[in-house]
């Protein structure tokens, strides 16, 4: 299939609807409508935030992200200084310009310096009614899990106190089922790219992902099911591409992935917090573990961010994914001043090399579309990978 050719057998109407959600966010009509009807919306800053707790309280959780493309960040820089990552500055600039005024609450965490300072300044300069910051341990030990469970309990209690009403176990269980269903469907979407000639691209997948944390899961799951059906009925196939995995900092601009795919690559897997690490593992309901503990364990033990220790847990899961999806090479895109990922790069590159997976390291700014020099470097990398396959 040639890029850009849309026929009745290749068009994906459900994807178009999801794209429309992304085009408008955060100034989206469906969010305005929700507010008009008395609904509440919370923004969360990091994938360690237990969304189910917010959802079970009858509040729509949406992910706080920055501009959809690279842009001047004068206001963001004025507040967070030039050496905060451009993701934090981009998010804050949107906030300070009123684009997130619809939020009823902001939930942050001690995940990384960029996000914790974004939360600090948000709390100081914005008038969002509810704030909560979670202490997120950096280890996976039993003690760390117990501490995070305690932290999630406190978050729930704080939210209940603010709402003036409790969050029932039944509500929580419904939310867990809903979010687990979403995770299952997203896994299904990702698995489509295991084959030699996938019907869906990495850019399209990121577009789906972006919509997944910007709209009610109830609707999203329904639309994603429709999309999966449309894909199965379509005659789409992306053959003869260099299979690439993208790892590193937060990434929401699908044009970056598209730029890789326009020069001969196909992004078949990722390790992004806006990708695999978002839907990663399900909440495991074993009938013994208290519900909220099962939630907290899922979030702390999920496919890890570079902030976690030991890093081998992240490296091993990247390597396993790279093998599972038969990638030819890995592109590591690190936003400047995204220190956790910058620190991991030497060791990760070494581990991937030992597995026969070359790595291209790109320093980028949040929102980049991957044009210019980045495109040239990607092209050269893909040519090298292509030559290795011959």
């Amino acid at each position, binding site marked *: 299939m040639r890029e850009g050719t849309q026929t009745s057998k290749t068009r994906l109407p459900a994807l178009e609807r999801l794209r429309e959600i992304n085009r408008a966010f955060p100034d989206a009509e469906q969010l305005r409508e929700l507010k008009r009807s008395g609904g509440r919306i919370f923004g969360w800053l990091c994938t360690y935030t237990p969304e189910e707790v917010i959802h079970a309280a009858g509040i729509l959780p949406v992910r706080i992200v920055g501009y959809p493309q690279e842009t001047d960040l004068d206001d963001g820089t004025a507040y967070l200084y030039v050496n905060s990552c451009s993701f934090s500055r981009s998010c804050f600039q949107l906030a300070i310009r009123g684009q997130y005024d619809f939020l009823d609450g902001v939930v942050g965490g001690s995940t990384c310096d960029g996000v914790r300072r974004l939360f600090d300044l948000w709390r100081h300069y914005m008038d969002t009614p509810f704030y909560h910051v979670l202490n997120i*341990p950096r280890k996976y030990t039993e003690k760390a899990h117990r501490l995070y469970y305690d932290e999630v309990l406190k978050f729930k209690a704080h939210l209940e106190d603010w709402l003036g009403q409790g969050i029932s176990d039944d509500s929580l269980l419904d939310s867990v089922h809903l979010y687990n269903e979403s995770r299952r469907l997203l896994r299904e979407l990702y698995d489509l790219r295991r084959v030699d000639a996938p019907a869906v691209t990495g850019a399209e997948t990121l577009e789906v992902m972006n919509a997944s944390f910007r709209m009610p899961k109830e609707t999203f799951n329904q639309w994603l099911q429709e999309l999966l059906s449309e894909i199965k009925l379509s005659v789409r196939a992306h053959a003869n591409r260099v299979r690439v995995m993208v790892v590193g900092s937060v990434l929401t601009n699908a044009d970056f992935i598209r730029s890789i795919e326009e020069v001969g690559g196909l992004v078949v897997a990722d390790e992004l917090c806006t990708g695999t690490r978002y839907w990663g593992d399900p909440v495991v309901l074993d009938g013994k573990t208290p519900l909220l503990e099962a939630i907290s364990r899922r979030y702390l033990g999920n496919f890890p961010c570079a902030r976690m220790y030991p890093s081998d847990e992240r490296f091993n899961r990247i390597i396993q994914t790279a093998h599972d999806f038969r990638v030819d090479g890995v592109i590591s895109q690190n936003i400047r001043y995204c220190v956790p990922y910058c*620190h991991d790069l*030497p060791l990760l590159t070494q581990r991937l090399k030992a597995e026969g997976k070359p790595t291209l390291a790109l320093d980028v700014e949040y929102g980049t579309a991957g044009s210019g020099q980045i495109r040239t470097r990607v092209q050269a990398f893909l040519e090298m990978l292509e030559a290795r396959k011959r």
Partner: protein
Amino acid sequence: MTGHAEARTPETNKVRAIVRACRLISRMNRLRPDVTRSENLYYQMLSDYFTRLLDARNNGDFIAAHTVFFPAELLYAMDLVPMHTETTTWMTSLFTGECSDLLEAGSALGLASEICTPHRGLAGAFSLGAVPRPDVMLWSNMVCDNTAKSGELIMELAHCPGFFIDHPFKDSPEEKQYLVGELEDMVVFLEEHSGRKMNWDRLSEIVARMDRQVQLTREVNELRKSVPSPFGSRRFLELVTMDYLFPGQPAAIEYLETLKQELSDMVAQGKGAVARERFRLMSLFIPPMYLTGFLEKVSQEFGAVSVVEPFFTFWGEGRLDPAHPLESVAQKSYMLPEMRMYGPLDDRALDAITSCAREYRIDGAIYYADVGCRHTCATIKLFKDTLSEVDVPVLTLDCDVVDPTLTSQDEIREKLERFFELLEDR
């Protein structure tokens, strides 16, 4: 992953350079009547610390490398030789004027230029074999992502095991207990690898002295409130070093008691650290190490003296209890001045700077905006806005704490001159 420069770089050259510099300064100081006893003690302490590190291998000692804001009390209690990693990069810059070879070696490992220079430099130092190879690497997430992420690469470079202390973000009883558990686990780790047992009685003694050390630092801070202030800007690093390198050590007590007495005498005589005190300054974060001498000259020339550093020398409230040594070591980390920057940045941090501004009668504040320090620089506007509420102007100086290539002395001097003019006009 190892460096390739070991053959041309003596294993311990940076540490040896620091020792040589300290000894040289001590010898020169003997010829200067204006040098105080506390200053001489300080350089002797530095010399002793790094000499012990240099000799550790020959003496069969166990070297425990650790990052900043780390509870080195536990290492002293087990008679292990501590190696404060960032201080080694700092001191290299301070005493040799630069550390470009270490930074280049760090970059050669694949560490991006955005990684702060003390951490990039220390990875480079291990890569070059420019510091002794540690037997263990110990680190924590106090106080930023750089400290949290620096340990594993060093373990790889130094071929040694390591232990990471996961420091909780907030200070609930559960989080404090979690930290105690982390310390317990680290003691077990150290006992296993060093073959030495924790001496709990010795730890209690160290905790008792650390409590005294904190009290003495607070008393020194009280004396710095005097007009004129008796403690020179360039000596700020001495106070910081006391905790970084010598927590609960007898030498630290001797230094602080001596310093306190000297400052008391100066206050009684109405003497200040600068000949004519005109501007009382608050220092926000760390001045560039390589500019210590230059900044001292400017300070003397303009009668400007740093009288308080809320995030480096201004301890939080609390006492340490020798009867509960491990809990006290954990408690100390919550009292650290830097802790105000680690947890949620709430009224505690903001109140600290406004109350310091009032109590120390501050004319202006200088924010040393270290380009590699993201979590501090992100507070510049917030702190400026907060200090403007108490009518204290803030000068932001872009710099790097150890890399002299980022800003020139001329540029910094010009900015300082203009700032002092502004203060004068007020």
